[in-house]
């Protein structure tokens, strides 16, 4: 038995209001989840990067330490080498000065250069030439100068000149000149 002349409309649980509500909340929840996952991924990346930074930093630290010790060693090498080069140059100047010091009239037969002294063997025409032309400049350089003579075959004099620098006096002279 029919009570109505129209066909009944289908009733759905998803009414217009519920659809609107669900759409709104779906969008909201999706946005919240997307934001959450974005934060999780970014955060994970930051933590990963920080771990990488820590490893790189350790590497850099160890590299810096190695390079610093290498630099120190090269500086040490350079310092020693420069000291040796200077010593050789000073030695060359000392020998040049020594040979320049000997006048034409005096002939050297032997020269011994010591750490703190100089021993010269040679021939001089007479004592005066030796005293004025060789001993005088030697006295100005060395603190102690000893000379001995003995006759040579041609009437000249053979001499042995022993000269020493006293280390203590040299040091005190250096201090005095610095003042």
């Amino acid at each position, binding site marked *: 038995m029919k009570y109505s002349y129209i066909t009944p409309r289908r009733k759905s649980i998803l009414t217009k209001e519920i659809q609107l509500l669900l759409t709104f909340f779906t969008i909201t929840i999706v946005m*919240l989840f997307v934001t959450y996952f974005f934060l999780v991924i970014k955060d994970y990346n*930051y933590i990963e990067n920080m771990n990488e930074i820590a490893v790189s930093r350790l590497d850099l630290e160890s590299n810096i330490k190695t*390079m*610093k010790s290498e630099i120190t060693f090269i500086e040490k090498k350079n310092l020693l*080498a420069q000291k040796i080069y200077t010593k050789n140059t000073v030695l060359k100047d000392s020998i*040049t000065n020594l040979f320049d010091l000997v006048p034409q009239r005096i002939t050297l037969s032997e*020269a*011994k250069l010591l750490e703190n002294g100089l021993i010269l063997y040679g021939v001089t025409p007479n004592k005066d030439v030796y005293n004025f032309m060789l001993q005088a400049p030697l006295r100005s350089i060395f603190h102690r100068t000893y000379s001995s003579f003995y006759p040579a075959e041609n009437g000249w004099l053979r001499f042995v000149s022993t000269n020493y620098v006293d280390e203590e006096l040299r040091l005190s002279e250096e201090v005095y000149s610095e003042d």
Partner: protein
Amino acid sequence: MKIRISRQHIYLLSMLSFLLVFVLLFSFLVLIPKGKEYREDRVEYKKEARELRRYQNFHNEIEEKLKTLQAENRHIITAFDTAFNQERFEKQHRNYFSSLTVSRLLNTSVEDGFVSYEVNTTSEISSPKSFYDFLDAVNKSDWIIAVEFPINFKRDNEMIKSSFTMKVYGLNKETNTTKKVVE
């Protein structure tokens, strides 16, 4: 007065409340703390990255300094690493002397990472100038050599016989190896 709410509306209201509570709880209990954590980690990361850049710059500066030092002192570094070779020394410096004999002594001393041993030299020169040239050449030779006292010059007819000791410096391989192992 009686308020009549339809069943439909009750469903709607309960769903609305449930979803609203869920959104609020999720936001306040999960999303906001995570955001806070993210922000802190970002600040920390930026700080670490800045620190790393500073370290990297410092590292580059040191590396640059080391390279410059190595380039400037290449001769000295190589000279310290080169083992003394009598034949080569004689060959290189023979032209300064009329005759040159080098004999290695066993007097070795170790000092502060360096080892040095003495070499005895006897030679003949025609004039002191040759000896000066030799002293200049020693500073440019393949080894680090110091000419030591005593130096003897003795006239022998037209020639001058000279004898002197040289100190050859090298690296103390044992100490340096130990140092590297310890590092």
